[in-house]
Structure formats: structure tokens, C-alpha cells
């Protein structure tokens, strides 16, 4: 069991604070999946924040407007840590703590779900150098980052309704999807960003997907560690074989989840009427994903385990795992133009991405009755007026809680009256006039 809460500062943020930075917003009743309250402590430029959305009737757009550097994106980033993974910026846990803060950062939220209200909290615990016998294997509710770096290990801790759980467990609670300006290059940069995008889509349908990825990666790191330290036989071939079986089992589960999700997304796109955002044709590229198209999962598992065994010498030399689902890719094609996404114009690529996100949200809503929470950073400024209106219409149709940021509140006027408008200034949030 992890140590008591007093050391995490999570219990503290759950308490009511008579602080100056409390915002209560009223509008009335309830349905759908949405944040009802968000509390931050020492997160980026927020010393403390208690944002209450208690009286909102149902999921609606929430606009955060304010000058650059006010903390709009930081707020989206805080929300993104209510999902597994490393948030919208992929930051190091330690970099999230407010400069000059005494304690580590924490984010907690009250989430309304069809099953009732859930309290979720997450934050960082900086652990002191490991002393023998004091850390239990794996440690429930924690994720150690950068075990190889010289720094003290940083652990992300997660609590759901007061009990510690692993960060992967957050997938059960809510699906959070986002688009940020740094994803504009998604189709032209390396495959890792596309894989992350893809795996977040899968997580909405398969809550265990994150655990499968973590298990696959753990076994992969262990195998590589043996190969790089002890050469081709790893000091003990049976040990390598055991790890390769683990990689095969979890790797095939990862690939199968991806195939399933892309299948449902493709179906959703096919059944949608043509709109302002171009439709994409999606394809998965990867050893296991390809294998699963024609072979039984058990056969693919066997083949992959054999392949890993055959690759030992190669992997030991290169210091990397040459094949597996950690190298898969998602390829997108502009359906109407028949052009690969990476060859489309910058504007078209952005439109394709927005279309994908909207289709995914619609698919999750239809299949899971669990619409995701959407985080759209600086999206309005990069779309022309026609696309902006089309996006807003889609968002209102979807009835997702969508957090949008922008410098100019006026751009969001087409969202209409059911939108919550907040202004952000220097880590403070006020209800906009």
C-alpha cells in the first residue's frame, strides 16, 4: 500500500477553500459525461484553483479566453491528466509543478458519469532514493517515470473515489480526447505521435488498452535490458523466451484493440454525411496488425514470439527492439482526393484531423453511450469562418463537454447561448461578461 494521503497533498485540495480563486457557475439538472468541479494546486501557473461547474444541466462547450500566457492551455493540460498518459504536452511530471511551489502538483475533479459522480485525483509524488526493502514490487497506484535517468524517480499517483489505482485505471472513468496546435504536424512527423493518437482513440473503446501497452512495453524493456547486458542468450535463454511470450501475448492484444477501433471508426466515417471536414480513409501498418488480418490471434502470437527469438542478435547489437506493435503506424488518406494525408496542404491536414476527432467522438457516443470530454486548444484561430461554424455545429450536436481556448472571445459567438464563457488571466478564472 502507498503511504498515507497527507504526503500527497491530494486530500487537501479536495477540501473547500475560502480562497480568492473560486468560481461557481450556475445554469441547472444533469445527464452525460462531464467535469463538475476541477481543483488544481501548484500546477503550472496555477497556485490554486477551484473551478465549480455544479449547476450546468448537461455537457456543453466551455470557452476559455484570455491573453497568451494566461494559463488557458495549462488548464486543458491539467484536465488531460485525468486520462492515462502524459497529457497534451507529453511533459515530464516534475516540469508540471509551479515554479517556486513548496509541494508537488495535483489535479482533482468531480466527474459526472451515467453511473453517478466520481471523485478523481492525480498528482506527483517525488520519491526519495529507493532504500532496500521499503518499496514493494510495482507499488499500487504509482507510475515511475524515467527509471534510467539520474534524477530522483517521479511517481504519478492516482486516486479514484479515495482509493489508489494505477494511472491506466483512469481509462475506466472518462475518455478524454484532444487536438492541440502541436498536433498539426501529426501526418508529416514520425510515427510515434500518430501511434499515441491512435492508442488514445482505442482507449475510448477498450479501457484495458493502456494496461496492455504498459505490459508490452515493460516486457520489451526487460528483454532489451537482458540483451544489451548479457548478449544474445541474455545470460539465460529461458528468461528471454518467457519475456518474448509476454511481449507476444500483450502485443497481439494491443494490435487487436487497434484493429477493432479503426474498424468502428471507419464504419462511422462511412455512414456520416459529407460535411465541411474531409473524410479520411484509415489504414494500420504493422507486423501484428497485418498478421491479424489473415491469421488467428494465437498463430500471430506464436509467430511473433518466434520472430523475437530470431531477432535477438540483431536487437542486442542495435540496442532496440526491431519489430513489434511499438513500431506500428496509422496511415490516413484524404478520401475525396485520394491523396495521402502527409501530401495534403497544411489546412487540409488540420481539417482531416478535426474530422477524425469528431467522427471518433460520434462513434464513442453511439457505441458506448459515453461521449468523450474534448479539449481543443487554439482551434478556432486556425480555421476559416465556414469551418469554424461547421465545427461549432458538430460540437453542439455531439453534446460533449468541450473545452476550447482562444485569445478572442468574439470568435466563439456562433456557439450560442448554452456555452459557458470564462476569461483566464494570470492563473485566475472569471466568468466572462
Amino acid at each position, binding site marked *: *500500500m502507498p*503511504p*498515507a494521503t*497527507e*504526503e500527497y497533498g491530494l486530500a487537501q485540495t479536495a477540501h473547500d477553500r475560502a480562497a480568492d480563486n473560486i468560481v461557481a457557475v450556475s445554469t441547472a439538472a444533469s445527464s452525460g459525461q462531464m467535469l463538475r468541479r476541477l481543483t488544481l494546486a501548484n500546477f503550472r501557473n496555477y497556485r490554486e484553483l477551484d473551478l465549480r461547474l455544479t449547476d450546468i444541466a448537461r455537457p456543453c462547450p466551455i470557452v476559455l479566453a484570455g491573453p497568451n500566457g494566461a494559463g488557458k492551455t495549462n488548464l486543458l493540460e491539467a484536465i488531460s491528466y485525468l486520462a492515462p498518459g502524459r497529457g497534451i504536452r507529453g511533459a515530464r511530471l516534475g516540469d508540471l509543478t509551479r515554479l517556486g511551489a513548496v509541494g508537488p502538483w495535483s489535479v482533482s475533479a468531480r466527474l459526472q458519469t451515467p453511473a453517478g459522480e466520481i471523485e478523481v485525483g492525480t498528482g506527483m509524488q517525488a520519491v526519495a532514493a529507493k532504500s532496500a526493502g*521499503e518499496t*514493494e*514490487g*510495482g507499488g*499500487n497506484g504509482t507510475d515511475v517515470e524515467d*527509471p534510467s535517468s539520474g534524477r530522483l524517480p517521479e511517481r504519478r499517483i492516482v486516486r479514484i473515489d479515495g482509493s489508489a489505482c*494505477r494511472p491506466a485505471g483512469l481509462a475506466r472513468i472518462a475518455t478524454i480526447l484532444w487536438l492541440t496546435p502541436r498536433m498539426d504536424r501529426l501526418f508529416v512527423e514520425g510515427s510515434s505521435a500518430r501511434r499515441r493518437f491512435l492508442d488514445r482513440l482505442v482507449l475510448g473503446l477498450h479501457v484495458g488498452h493502456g*494496461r496492455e501497452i504498459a*505490459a508490452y512495453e*515493460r*516486457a520489451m*524493456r*526487460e*528483454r532489451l*535490458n*537482458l540483451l544489451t*547486458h548479457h548478449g544474445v542468450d541474455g*545470460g*539465460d535463454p*529461458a*528468461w528471454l*523466451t*518467457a*519475456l518474448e*511470450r*509476454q511481449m507476444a501475448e*500483450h502485443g497481439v492484444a494491443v494490435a487487436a484493440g487497434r484493429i477493432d477501433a479503426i474498424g468502428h471508426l471507419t464504419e462511422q466515417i462511412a455512414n456520416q454525411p459529407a460535411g465541411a471536414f474531409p473524410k479520411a480513409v484509415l489504414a494500420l501498418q504493422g507486423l501484428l496488425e497485418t498478421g491479424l488480418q489473415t491469421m488467428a490471434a494465437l498463430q500471430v502470437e506464436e509467430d511473433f514470439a518466434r520472430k523475437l527469438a530470431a531477432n535477438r542478435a540483431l536487437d542486442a547489437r542495435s540496442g532496440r527492439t526491431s519489430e513489434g506493435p511499438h513500431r506500428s503506424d496509422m496511415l490516413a488518406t484524404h478520401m475525396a482526393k485520394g491523396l495521402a494525408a502527409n501530401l495534403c496542404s497544411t489546412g487540409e491536414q488540420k481539417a482531416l484531423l478535426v474530422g477524425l476527432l469528431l467522427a471518433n467522438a460520434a462513434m464513442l457516443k453511439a457505441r458506448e453511450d459515453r461521449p468523450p470530454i474534448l479539449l481543443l486548444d487554439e482551434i478556432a484561430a486556425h480555421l476559416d469562418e465556414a469551418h469554424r461554424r461547421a465545427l461549432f455545429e458538430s460540437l453542439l450536436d455531439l453534446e460533449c463537454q468541450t473545452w476550447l481556448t482562444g485569445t478572442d472571445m468574439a470568435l466563439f459567438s456562433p456557439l450560442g447561448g448554452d456555452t459557458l464563457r470564462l476569461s483566464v488571466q494570470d492563473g485566475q478564472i472569471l466568468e466572462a461578461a
Partner: protein
Amino acid sequence: MNRSGSVEIDRLIQILARLPGLGPRSARRAVLHMLKKRDSLMAPLAAAITDVAEKVHVCATCGNLDTSEPCAICSDHRRNRSIICIVEEVADLWALERAGSFSGLYHVLGGVLSALDGVTPEDLNIASLIERAGSDEVEEVILATNATVDGQTTAHYITERLKDAGVAVTALAHGVPVGGELDYLDDGTLTAAMRARRPF
């Protein structure tokens, strides 16, 4: 930190605070509580700790903790000596004994394989397991390691090593989420998992 004014009391608090589940605050509370019940609690506790520290040792056969050698389980001739259940830690052995659903013998590994944490087959009681499983009276080995990546890797590893031992290798039917630990399972779940074990 723990300034009580007494060096002896501070030392006791510091030692207690190193126990799993206790922090400095709860250690101070525990010490104050014991001092209030010196005769009814503190003295018997001190005696019990001394007793256990002096007499308990690791069973050379299975890795269990007991005062007798071999341990009470290993020397109990009513138990089924043809089945060995492999667990990670003594805590898991205790959990299975509490559930009372298993009447064979045990083998405590003392951890799980982890290349990243530097735990190798030599650090675990695996060689002694291979030797035990090779004896004629053993017919079945049950893998009851946890459903974590390292627990399952260890299970696969042992299976590899037991290939030529001529024993059936089975595994608990864990309906346990990955990361679940035997120690935390209720007795009914453990009993069901033991009954429904399957070839590994």
C-alpha cells in the same frame, strides 16, 4: 524530527516508522499507546518480538517461515506431497492457507524475475524448485504467481525450466485483474481460482 525528549523513545519511533503502512505520525501514536498499556501490551509485544526474532527461520525446503525445520507444512504427512504450489512471497502462502482450499505443499520464490530491477533467476529459489519437482513423488506444479508482467514472466520462465521434469504444470484461474495480488484476494476467490486451475 521526533523530539519526544527521550533518546530511547525517539529511537523506537524511528524504527516503527520504517514499518510498511506506518509513518512518523502513526508511529508516535503507537508508541504513546503502548506506553499507556505497558504491562498489558508493551511487555508481551516485546517478548513476542524477541521470541519470533530468535526462533523463526526460513524453511530450507519451501521457503516458508516457521520455528521448526522443515516447516510445519512440509513436515505434515497428511498433506498431498505430489502437488507443489509456487508463490511469490510468504504472504501469498499465508493467503492460500487462510482460504484453506489447498492441501499440497508450497514453494516460495522470494520475489519475481525483473531485469530492470536486477532480480535474476539466481536471486530466486528456482534451482531448489527444479530439484524438488524432479523427485518422483511430485506430479503437479501449480503456478500461483501474480498476474503482473513480472509474475507471469516468472511463471513462463519456470515452465520453460520444468519442460523436462515430467510434471504437469498448471496455473491458478486468476479472474484477477492484471496487477492483482493474491494477498488481497478474498478466500472464496482464491478457492475458486485453485479449483479451476488449468494447464499453463
